[in-house]
Structure formats: structure tokens, C-alpha cells
């Protein structure tokens, strides 16, 4: 009698516990700064595609306010504790996430930094997959150089100290401009700090005065581009400068179509997401890949924005939205 009951209890226990484990898919967590911009929707679509290719399930979450790095730290800790197979982190802040990344690395979880790198290279074993900022800077310089054939001035805006991509884009833009278009001069660099609510360093009138005198503007981020457009919208200058901007969203694409923006340099965040999944799911013993993977951006103008290829590139969401 005792043996029968013991066997019954053991069978019940085994059945209950195996229900949770049987066929449980591998979960990869994608943690972005927000979910709502086209850039994050594209990286999510890439992760979703990657999971279809590598037999995993994606978990996607993000803070509900921009620049809320504390919430992203919570999410990183949560997913680490949950024991997911890997985490793809597009850091909200290049510095604030470093301690949590260190803890995740020590715990042995597979981690990929995506879209923008951390402010340190202290984690050589954590791969980083980002857009190629050198190509982004060069494309921006070429587009502006082609427009200002007789020379002129360009203002650089949109520096976001919480994102390393913006400073790298500025660096490579200046290098390419100096090397290839020496008659284009950079006017005093008006670098909006967009990482806090006190966004503008100058009052709107001063900002308009500075920007309106430039022949061209190179914007490093969507926040910077929006600030520029808002400044011009409020001030109504007689003539808009030639604007080349990095990254995109639906509003900026509409501005491109209307001619208020002349070119957008768009990162292939779909491919970044897809490669990040491949990186996490490959066997450890085959892990000889480079620790920094750069993905080429594309330049979008009014002439090509509505082509079929570019629309597929810009909107790879496959049924997802926002």
C-alpha cells in the first residue's frame, strides 16, 4: 500500500514538473529604449525573423518613457534572473547600463549589445552589433559636399551623450568633410543635448539665428532633427538649409517627402536584430566571430523613398506596429 501511494505521488510530481519543461522554447529577450519608433520596430522585426531561423521565441520589452535607463536596468536584471537563453540590449544610456551588463556577463548569460555601443570596451567577450558610423559620417559628408559644390557652411546638431553612435557619427563626418570637401566649413557646433528634458542649450531665437545662417545641417539623431524642424517651423526663416539627418521615423519620412529634409541616413536595424539572434544561438565552441559587427546604412532621398526595395527596407515589420 505504502509503495503504491509513494509511486502515485512521485508520478504526480514528475507529470506536473515536466509540463513546464517539455518542449519549452529558447527565449531571447530584446530590450530596447522604447518600442514605438521605427528603429526599434525594425530591430524587433529582425529579432523575430532571427528567431524563426534559429528556433527560438522572442520576448520584447522596453521602458514606457524615453531615457528611462533605470527601468531598462530593471528589465535587464529581470531577464537575467528569469534565465533566458540570451539578451539583446540596445542600451538607453551608454554608461548607466554598464554595471548591469557586467553582472550579466559574470552570470554567464549570452548577451549582445545592439544598435549603439556602451561607453566602455571593458567587456571584450560581449559582442556589439551596430550600424557603421564611419559609413554614416562619410555618406553625410558626401551628400552635403555634393550640394555645396562651391563651398559653404554646415552645422552639426543632435549630439546625445547617452548614445555613443552620435559622437562617432560626428567624428567620422568631420574626418570625411575635411578630407574630401575642404571648402565646406563647420560653423560653431551647436550640439543639442537630447538626453535630458532641458534639451536646448540655447533659447529658440538664438538657435534659429545660428541654424538659419548655415547652408547645411547634419543631424546626428532623430531628436536633434525634430528640434531643428520645430525651430524652423516656429521661426519661419526665408530659406531652409540643406538638411541631412541620421535615423528615421514616420514623421521624418513625411518631412523628407515634403522636401523639408533632403536626405536621411537609415540604419539597417532589421539586420542588426537578425544577426544578434544568430550570435546568441550559435554554439559556444564555434564562437570565433569578431566582437564588433558593423552593418551598412542606406541613404534615403525623395527620389528613392517610395521604391519597392526601400519600402521593404524601411518597413520590415511583417504585421507588427508600434
Amino acid at each position, binding site marked *: *500500500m*505504502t509503495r503504491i*501511494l509513494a509511486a*502515485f*505521488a512521485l508520478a*504526480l510530481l514528475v507529470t506536473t514538473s515536466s509540463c513546464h519543461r517539455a518542449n519549452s522554447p529558447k527565449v531571447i529577450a530584446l530590450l530596447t529604449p*522604447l*518600442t*514605438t519608433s521605427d528603429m526599434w520596430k525594425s530591430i*524587433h522585426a529582425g529579432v*523575430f525573423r532571427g528567431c524563426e531561423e534559429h528556433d527560438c521565441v*522572442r*520576448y*520584447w*520589452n*522596453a*521602458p*514606457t*518613457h524615453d531615457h528611462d535607463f533605470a*527601468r531598462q536596468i530593471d*528589465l535587464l536584471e529581470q531577464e537575467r534572473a528569469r534565465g533566458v537563453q540570451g539578451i539583446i540590449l540596445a542600451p538607453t544610456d551608454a554608461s548607466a547600463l554598464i554595471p548591469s551588463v557586467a553582472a550579466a556577463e559574470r552570470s554567464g548569460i549570452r548577451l549582445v549589445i545592439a544598435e549603439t555601443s556602451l561607453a566602455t570596451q571593458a567587456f571584450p567577450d560581449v559582442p556589439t552589433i551596430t550600424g557603421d558610423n564611419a559609413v554614416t559620417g562619410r555618406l553625410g559628408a558626401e551628400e552635403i559636399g555634393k550640394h555645396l559644390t562651391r563651398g559653404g557652411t554646415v552645422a552639426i546638431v543632435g549630439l546625445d551623450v547617452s548614445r555613443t553612435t552620435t559622437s562617432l557619427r560626428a567624428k567620422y563626418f568631420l574626418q570625411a568633410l575635411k578630407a574630401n570637401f575642404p571648402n565646406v566649413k563647420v560653423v560653431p557646433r551647436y550640439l543639442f543635448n537630447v538626453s535630458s528634458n532641458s534639451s536646448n542649450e540655447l533659447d529658440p531665437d538664438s538657435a534659429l539665428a545660428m541654424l538659419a545662417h548655415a547652408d547645411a545641417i547634419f543631424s546626428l539623431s532623430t531628436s536633434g532633427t525634430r528640434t531643428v524642424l520645430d525651430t524652423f517651423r516656429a521661426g519661419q526663416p526665408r530659406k531652409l538649409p540643406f538638411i541631412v539627418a541620421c535615423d528615421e521615423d514616420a514623421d521624418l519620412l513625411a518631412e523628407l517627402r515634403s522636401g523639408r529634409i533632403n536626405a536621411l541616413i537609415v540604419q539597417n536595424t532589421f539586420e542588426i536584430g537578425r544577426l544578434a539572434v544568430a550570435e546568441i544561438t550559435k554554439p559556444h565552441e564555434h564562437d570565433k566571430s569578431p566582437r564588433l559587427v558593423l552593418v551598412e546604412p542606406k541613404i534615403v532621398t525623395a527620389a528613392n523613398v517610395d521604391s519597392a526595395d526601400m519600402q521593404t527596407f524601411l518597413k520590415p515589420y511583417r*504585421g*507588427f*506596429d*508600434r
Partner: protein
Amino acid sequence: MRTSPRKVLLIAFASAVIATVAVIALMPRIAITSFLPYHDQFGLGRMDEWTAYGGVWQLGGGAITNASDDIGAKLVTGSARLKNYTVQSDVKLTNSFGDAGLIVRVADAEEGTNAFNGYYAGIRLPDQLLLGKMDFGYRPLSRATIPMGVKPGLWYRLSVEANGCTITAKATSINGDLLATASATDPNDQCDQSGAFGLRSFAAGGSWRNVLVEAAP
């Protein structure tokens, strides 16, 4: 015949196991029949049964208001085993951006913009009734135009019926005039079959009152 203490213990253990299995098996019915119909008690100043996932929720004037502009705040209640039912509520947007509405068949809810499984129907400025599937992403299923537009500060009556794999959202005026309907059938292998219900706003403040949940006909 005398029963040994050991045998008594074994019989008690077996009875406990059988009772546990029976309770687990009957729990869905107990939960569902005891929960519906449901009516909120916001007018009595009570919201004990609701769980907030983001947002700043305040009771007042017989309604509950999310005073934050979180991109995806939720307030959830009800049994995870609820299947076919209709949620109805008066909904009002309190600022001029974003959308607000109702969620059904909610499972795995967490704080985060799209962080749950289930369905969402909401009214969005300037004139949209949205219906979408949530699976830690948002997939639009259907949308309809509200001809008179969506105005901040104005109450609308929103209802969402989850019946099988068909989800139907309706927006009416407070007087009962039908303004828009959006409906979609989720393919069976992807259909969320059961879950709790709740309130959700997206990058907007919103108010809800007269939340009524009934079994679907």
C-alpha cells in the same frame, strides 16, 4: 477490526491528493461563474481587485483616471480562465495625443508598452477605433474611422467582445449611437483563448467608468 495509525495516515494522504486534484479540475468553473457579471466599484472608491502595470491611477467622480503619459499603462483584473465575454466601459482621453481603451484575454502581463498577451481595442485621435493583437508586440487586426472624430475630454462607450477567435470592438456615443465597429478573427492556431481583462492607455492620459463584463451571448 482495528485500523493501524499508519493506515489512517496513508488514507488521509490519499484523500488529500484526490481532493487537491478535484479542486484543480473544478477551479475554472468556480472562477468563471463567481466572477461574471462584473461591475467596477470605482464609484465607491474601491479598486482593490485591480493590478496596475505602469501609470498613475486615481479614483474620482465615479471613474478611474490614469494621469500619466506612459507609453502603454495597464490596469488588469479578472480570472486568467475567462474565455468568451464582453467588456464595456465609458472611456475618455484626457489629453490630445495617443489612445486609450480596453484589453481582453490578458495573460502574462508585465509593466511595459506591449508587455502582455491578449487583445487591445482603443480610441485614438483624431478619429480612429483600433483593434490589435498583443504578444509583447502590437499587430493591428482592424481599424475603423469614427466619423464625428475622437475628441479629448468627451466620453465614448467602448465595448470589446471576445467570442471564440473573433474579437469585435464597438464605439458608441454615450447616448448609444453606434459610431464605429472593428472586428477580426484571429487564426485559430494563434488565437488567445482565455485571459483577464483591463484598461490601457498609450502615450495618453485617460479615464474609465462603468466597467461592465458579462459572458458573451
